[in-house]
């Protein structure tokens, strides 16, 4: 039987739902088999978000994890956010996800990256206290209504007959744990991270583990393979950890955090730990001696030699040295927490044998006497080709089975969290028979992430970059709430009333502010007199609106409030509102011109393809074998997604459209026929 940890609400939950016939037959009469709406396997960044999102949507949810005490563990870097990743966190937060709020409670060094490069690409980032994050996350998870947490390793899935109205060869209806016990579920979300046949590599040593010190999942990997999922292998790595007191910081470059710090969450105006209590970071560099050690010992480094695909970018010091020799590479020395005596040397991810790692560290400036507490290591693990899942993250093969996080070939906490929220919402919507919640490429970084994965797949660990996003100027960190919070509230029910009301207030304040800004017009000459520091050209003869003046780099709402206080003063009361008005003004015209293009993409997204289309056999449509196979594998849900699959030609798209339209017409005719009998 399951060991009860955390809270024991699951007993009540399972008693409440015993209406499925097979459950009655299979359950031991003495101890009824527990039954949940949604079961989430894995308590990492994807799993916690998925479980919490499903529970917020009203589903009785069970989170199954190897160890409750590792929930909320940051297995690699002690930081969250960054360029592109910060964008994802804002969107997760807009859907009332956890990581941004937990980060605001646990951050020890806030820094907005790209400050000088334009607000569309600002990267919110912070060093996070590992211990605080874990504590705060566990507190949140263990106190989430409708969410039960259990320890247990899942060995197998329980499968049953498929629902005829959905595609898929079978349906998941529960899980079998290592001890042989079962839990029934209406939806199951797999967020097993690097644990599927995970192997940890240090030097030439390899041993099975999902993370240093944790068992991998092998039975589950076999189950998935038997079901017919295409499996690939990826690798990643983490740097060694160094004792704080053994580092000579005095000779290194110090970076102090932002003051004031910018919170991750829309609902927070400040962060928990005050700037003066926050910790600094330090920077040092590699040198030719590091290159030498890496190059001389390649034969002792099986992770680097392995053919398993790593990314084109360079996460390990070995790949940096091999691909960009004779350069100095920067190493950030990051604090792991307020009372932690560990330092995380970001940029020094390495898989050399431990003694060589120590040797390498010792030749770096400031680390001459450094003590290595834990060696860096590599992880190789199975991932499932993400073209086998739909944009709701449900698998094509098995109904009601969802995948989220590293299992889909991504890397990074934020990428995992983003998928977790979407999987949790959709697993819950699936149970209540509501339409899936899909974020389009035109709506968010989450949409780009999931669309890239599900239509293109990935052959290297997928990381979010802003350059992947076509409509980067519209999908900004500042406006994630206006893009997603309303949808989350109305369509998924995953957003709290408080957040929804705040988003409503912000939306109407912005609209009102912009219309006021547009309505105030003076001659350019007068503006120049009012705000002399602004580079306003006075050659224009027509009147210039305050919105146009606000576009100038040197002008902000404060400067406008000074010259027209009775109208603009009130918009400077809220710092966020003033900043957002300024950003809206800066991008207004370009965003307006992009709308046409966004609408075109959205139109294609509304053209749904039938989910049960058998591309390999349909006769009435002329498609090449190659195109058929591609469509069969990726199962695009819309014409838009189909047209993004490489090798699917425009002609094939038109033929598909024609087929769909003919089918719809035939359907309509059949429905109109008088019913006999």
């Amino acid at each position, binding site marked *: 039987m399951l060991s009860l940890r955390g809270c024991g609400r699951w007993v009540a939950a399972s008693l409440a739902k015993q209406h499925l016939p097979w459950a009655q037959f299979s359950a031991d009469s003495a101890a009824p088999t527990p039954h949940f709406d949604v079961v989430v396997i894995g308590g990492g960044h994807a799993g916690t978000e998925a479980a919490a999102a499903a529970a917020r949507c009203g589903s009785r949810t069970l989170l199954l994890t190897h160890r409750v005490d590792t929930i909320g563990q940051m297995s690699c*870097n002690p930081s969250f956010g960054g*360029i*592109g990743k910060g964008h994802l966190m804002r969107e997760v937060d807009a859907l009332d996800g956890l990581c941004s709020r937990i980060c605001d409670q646990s951050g020890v060094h806030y820094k907005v*990256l*790209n400050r000088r*490069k*334009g*607000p*569309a*690409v600002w990267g919110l980032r912070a060093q996070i206290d590992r211990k605080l994050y874990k504590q705060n996350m566990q507190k949140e998870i263990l106190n989430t209504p409708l969410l039960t947490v259990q320890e247990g390793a899942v060995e197998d899935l329980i499968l049953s007959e498929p629902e005829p109205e959905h595609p898929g060869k079978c349906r998941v209806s529960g899980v079998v744990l290592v001890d042989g016990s079962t839990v029934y579920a209406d939806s199951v979300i797999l967020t097993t991270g690097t644990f599927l046949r995970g192997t940890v590599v240090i030097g030439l040593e390899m041993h099975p583990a999902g993370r240093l010190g944790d068992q991998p999942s092998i039975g589950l990997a076999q189950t998935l393979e038997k079901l017919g999922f295409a499996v690939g292998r990826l690798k990643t790595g983490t740097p060694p950890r160094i004792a704080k007191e053994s580092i000579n910081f005095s000779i290194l470059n110090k970076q102090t955090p932002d003051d004031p710090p910018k919170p991750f969450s829309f609902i927070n105006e400040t962060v928990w730990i005050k700037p003066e209590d926050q910790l600094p970071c330090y920077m040092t560099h590699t040198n030719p001696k590091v290159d030498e050690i890496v190059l001389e010992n390649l034969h002792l480094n099986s992770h680097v030699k392995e053919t398993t695909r790593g*990314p*084109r*970018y360079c*996460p390990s010091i070995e*790949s*940096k040295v091999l*691909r960009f020799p004779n350069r*100095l*590479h*920067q190493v950030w020395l990051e604090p792991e927490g307020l009372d932690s005596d560990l330092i995380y040397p*970001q*940029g020094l*991810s390495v898989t050399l044998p431990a003694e060589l790692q120590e040797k390498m560290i010792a030749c770096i400036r400031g680390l001459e006497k450094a003590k290595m507490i834990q060696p860096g290591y590599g992880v190789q693990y199975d991932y499932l080709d993400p073209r086998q899942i739909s944009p709701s993250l449900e698998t094509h093969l098995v109904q009601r089975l969802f995948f989220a996080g590293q299992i889909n070939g991504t890397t990074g906490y934020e990428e995992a969290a983003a998928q977790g929220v979407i999987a949790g919402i959709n697993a819950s919507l699936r149970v209540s028979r509501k339409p899936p919640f899909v974020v389009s490429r035109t709506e968010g970084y989450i949409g*780009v992430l999931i*669309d*890239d994965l599900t*239509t293109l797949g990935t052959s290297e660990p997928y990381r979010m*970059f*802003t*350059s992947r996003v*076509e409509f*980067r*100027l519209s999908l900004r960190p500042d406006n994630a709430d206006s893009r997603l919070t309303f949808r989350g509230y109305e369509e998924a029910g995953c957003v709290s009333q408080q957040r929804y009301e705040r988003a409503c207030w912000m939306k109407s304040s912005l609209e009102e502010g912009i219309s006021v800004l547009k309505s105030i017009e003076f001659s350019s000459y007068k503006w120049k007199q009012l705000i002399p520091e602004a580079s306003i050209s006075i050659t224009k003869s027509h009147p210039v609106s305050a919105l146009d003046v606000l576009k100038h*780099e040197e002008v902000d709402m404060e400067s406008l409030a000074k010259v027209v206080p009775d109208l603009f003063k009130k918009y400077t009361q809220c710092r966020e509102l003033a900043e957002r008005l300024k950003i809206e003004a800066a991008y207004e*015209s*370009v965003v307006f*011109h992009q709308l*046409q*293009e966004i609408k*075109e*993409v959205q*139109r*294609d997204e*509304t*053209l749904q393809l039938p989910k049960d289309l058998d591309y390999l056999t349909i006769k009435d449509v*002329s498609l090449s074998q190659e195109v058929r196979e591609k469509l069969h594998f990726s199962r695009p849900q819309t014409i838009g997604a189909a*047209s*993004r*699959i*490489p090798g*699917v*030609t*425009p*002609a*094939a798209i*038109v*033929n598909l*459209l*024609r087929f769909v339209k*003919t089918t719809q017409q035939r359907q309509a005719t059949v429905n109109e026929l008088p019913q006999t009998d």
Partner: protein
Amino acid sequence: MWRGLWTLAARAARGPPRACARRGSGAPGSGATIFALSSGQGRCALAVIRTSGPASAHALRSLTAPRSLPPARRASLRLLRDPRSGEPLDRALVLWLPGPQSFTGEDCAEFHVHGGPAVVSGVLQALGRVPGLRPAEAGEFTRRAFAHGKLTLTEVEGLGDLIHAETEAQRRQALRQLEGELGQLCRGWAETLTQALAHVEAYIDFGEDDHFEEGVLEQADRAVRALEGALGAHLRDARRGQRLRSGAHVVVAGPPNAGKSSLVNLLSRKPVSIVSPEPGTTRDVLETPVDLAGFPALLSDTAGLREGAGPVEQEGVRRARERLEQADLILAVLDASDLASAASRDFLDTVVAPRAAQSPGGSGQRLLLVLNKSDLLPAAGPEPRPGLPPHLLLSCLTGAGLDRLLEALKAELAAVCGDPATGPPLLTRARHQHHLQGCLDALGRYKGTSDLALAAEALRVARGHLSRLAGGGGTEEILDVIFRDFCVGK
């Protein structure tokens, strides 16, 4: 709901769609109104140029200023002028066809101009300069009609084939154009711009990740300034360089010594190529404009396809293969008395069979198989070789079979030339200018902003324009350059 086809329109000509490759649809607010030469390119007194989309009325007014819009659906005579220079272009019949009662269901305009290339080219370029107008992509008019429910499903049946055919035709067209100096220029520009964009993107995504070499942005700025200069100079240059030859591209190909040059001389009625009994006499591609059965055509004689000859001839063979790819119609010539030879069989397998296997009326290149030297065959003998695809017998020496060949050529060329997609070198030029100008305008916006996200957006738009001419432009391509040039990662 079928309006979604809009987006498909722009994708057709780019070959396989790429994820994330944004269309450089150009000037703000554009992308909705298209124009094209709608009549074929056989010799004719009139040419018809059409527009479709919301800016049609504006286009019509711009070219016929100062006159007002003519009454709907009534032919009116107007003097057409270039809206920028005011230079008269032609006296033409114009039609104003407001939607939804038009062929595409949108606002449409038609210009019936005199058929000379100078006039047609002038009007097309004038339209390209009207804000909001861009040249149509393959099959775009038909697709818009489909999107607005103006075509029944049966009419649309062949639409997929049509788009495929037009895409192919445009691809061949682009290949021809990219062969010359202009193509090299274009590819060079695209490369420069890709690099500049990749470096700006890298600076945005990774600028704080690792210490960037000093001056990445300054380098991009310099590249953009140089590119701006080059594009501006090119657009101002009155010399047009390589003349875009109009007419169907007919390529004569076959194994050595099959009599290709003899056939070219016979068809052009002049000794274009040197003929000799020695295999490998023709070593380069020889072009000659001819009138074939009443259609303008560009006839190319090519080196005989064989392996293992000397370096000069090998280059000739390479050029011959390149030219084959660009042909609208291939005249495949074999020696009727030598069909069993390795060279003949190889040619049949690699060149004739794949094209003959295509469905008639389908998309790909057309091909006529000619068995020359029929005079060497025994009189009234059996089939030269069983299992051959449909073919024609000819003797260049005696002229026997020439009439039937001309008849077959006429049918093929009528099909090729009747299709407006295959013969618009003038439209190709208009498209070229449109995208170069769009690129130049975007580069101007790059310089005008200090917000790097806005600057990168301007470069993305500029790159989109060039990718329409030179291909490429997807996100993956940019990422490849980033990861090649910079050491980035966590």
